[in-house]
């Protein structure tokens, strides 16, 4: 058990370490490790407009995706848990599950079919990209928040507050929001991380000027090893940051978001 676990961890970290090493290596050609130490790959990645733009695009995209997701999911979960009869709840859960079950390649192709027509000529627009990201990430936020709320005493609170005479909006603001904000936060971290790393859908539907970072990253792989490694580090460090952050948050907030939905 110990052997397999630590074996996996080595396996997990080895490519990352090599990427790190490669990014600082001057020349790496058919040798065990690169020769020379340099910063120049970072500089050249930064100097290329495409990569700089893509970094910004990715960050903006992740942020917008998160915001829209929150605006959609927070009221949705409230409605679903409190107002939906059991059957409608399970249907909703099933529907929400679908975007995860359908491969992103298929969703992307469906987008191409639907939105490159003269009637809906949206393919390539940044908003369509955001919409795509929202569709594929929102199940994760939904399930995080939903599972958290299911496990929370919201229903009891609602009933109690109702008996105390609290109006609907008062209950939403005074009781639901305080209950839900932690899981919204941790769920948003997941969403942001997913959105930042998303390639399969973005690659098909992003407009050239709003290519997120992963899409341009794959082209870095056709370049020099050092350049490619340096280019991955941006994503890598964001990923590490997010994962560290959400771990810390869960550690501190205690009541963690149960990952009802497998990632």
């Amino acid at each position, binding site marked *: 058990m110990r052997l397999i676990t630590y074996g996996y961890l080595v396996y997990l970290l080895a490519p990352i370490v090599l990427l790190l090493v490669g990014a600082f290596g001057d020349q790496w050609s058919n040798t065990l490790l690169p020769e020379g130490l340099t910063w120049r790959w970072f500089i050249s990645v930064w100097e290329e407009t495409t990569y700089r733009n893509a970094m910004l695009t990715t960050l903006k995209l992740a942020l917008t995706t998160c915001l829209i997701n929150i605006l959609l999911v927070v009221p949705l979960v409230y409605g679903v848990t409190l107002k939906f009869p059991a059957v409608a709840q399970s249907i909703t859960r099933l529907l929400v599950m679908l975007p995860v079950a359908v491969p992103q390649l298929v969703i992307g192709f469906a987008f191409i079919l639907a939105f490159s027509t003269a009637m809906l000529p949206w393919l390539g627009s940044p908003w369509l990209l955001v919409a795509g990201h929202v569709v594929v990430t929102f199940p994760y936020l939904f399930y995080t928040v939903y599972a958290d709320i299911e496990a929370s*005493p919201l229903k009891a609170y609602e009933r109690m507050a109702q008996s105390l*005479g609290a109006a609907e909006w008062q209950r939403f603001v005074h009781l639901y929001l305080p209950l839900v904000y932690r899981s919204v936060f941790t769920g948003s971290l997941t969403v942001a991380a997913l959105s930042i790393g998303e390639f399969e859908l973005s690659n098909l539907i992003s407009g050239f000027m709003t290519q997120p970072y992963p899409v341009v990253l794959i082209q870095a792989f056709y370049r020099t090893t050092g350049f490619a490694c340096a280019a991955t580090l941006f994503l890598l460090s964001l990923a590490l940051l997010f994962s560290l952050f959400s771990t810390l948050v869960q550690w501190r907030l205690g009541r963690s978001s149960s990952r009802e939905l497998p990632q």
Partner: protein
Amino acid sequence: MIALENIQFHYPHSSVGVHDINLQVETGEFLVVVGASGSGKSTLLQLIAGFLTPLQGRVLLDHQDVTQLSCGERGLGIVLQDYVLFNHMTVLGNVAYPLKVKGVRQVERHRRARKILHDVGLEALEHYYPSQLSGGQQQRVAIARALVFEPRALLLDEPFSALDASRRESMRQELKHIQRQFGVTTLMITHDQEEALMLGDHVAVLEQGELLQHSAPHQLYTQPVSEAVARFIGRTNFIDAQVINSQRIQTADLGILEVTPHAFTVGQTVRAMIRPEAIIANPVSDIVNRVPTTLVERQFLGAQQRHYLLCGTTTLSLESASTPDHITHVALPPTHIHLFNR
């Protein structure tokens, strides 16, 4: 005052609910509703609270018909099983919340909340969060919150069921104490018969949605109106018998027993009931209803002993503080024998 008039309710697509309930809780009275799980106790409470609306009948609060009012408008204080405190608010915030939703200004609502916290002895804990409180303190917060807006009545749904046995006892005392102090009309639900007897000014027994009996605890125990009530409250011995005349019954194993005058017809089969502590062990020889018996087993219960006695094929249990070495005869005092239809 709470009054229920011919309340009729069942859940959609089912026949379970409560049927034709008439019940009155006087102002300041403490009524305990007791019944087995699923007997409709919570349903009854929800009908009073306004979470459910009866299909027929009326709910009156202080002579006002509130049947069509929503729960928020009825002005009842409700304490549920697990208290349902708002975990993200302090004790003060919790207690002041009912005033907040009514639009009372902060200064005023804090003043009133503090006063009631003082009354329940929690003034020192106002900045604590519910998770930092013991079960008993949480209960008092829940009660304070239910009392802060001077409700017309207090409804409690199994407030002790979440507690372990050792804690329960002291919390019962505390509840009784607070209820007396505020003199608030209270209806409490429990499935624990001992609790009901201990706390209630009156006790109502519910079974399958029907009100079986509604009387003072002592009367409930000593004069149950039906076999069901007798079974539910306390331990009992049942003996099948046949009526000989208005003062005698014939049993298979205990011979002819004298009973207090009754209205059953001669020849009818009945069920006679006697509490284990009412049976007299080794009575004087000229007592009525004296029956020979053999001691089968003895169980030590601490303050009391339980004796399993065999009379023919009938097993009687007898509880007493004393521990006679042998039991050769027992007596069943006629006043303690109750007859029920079979």
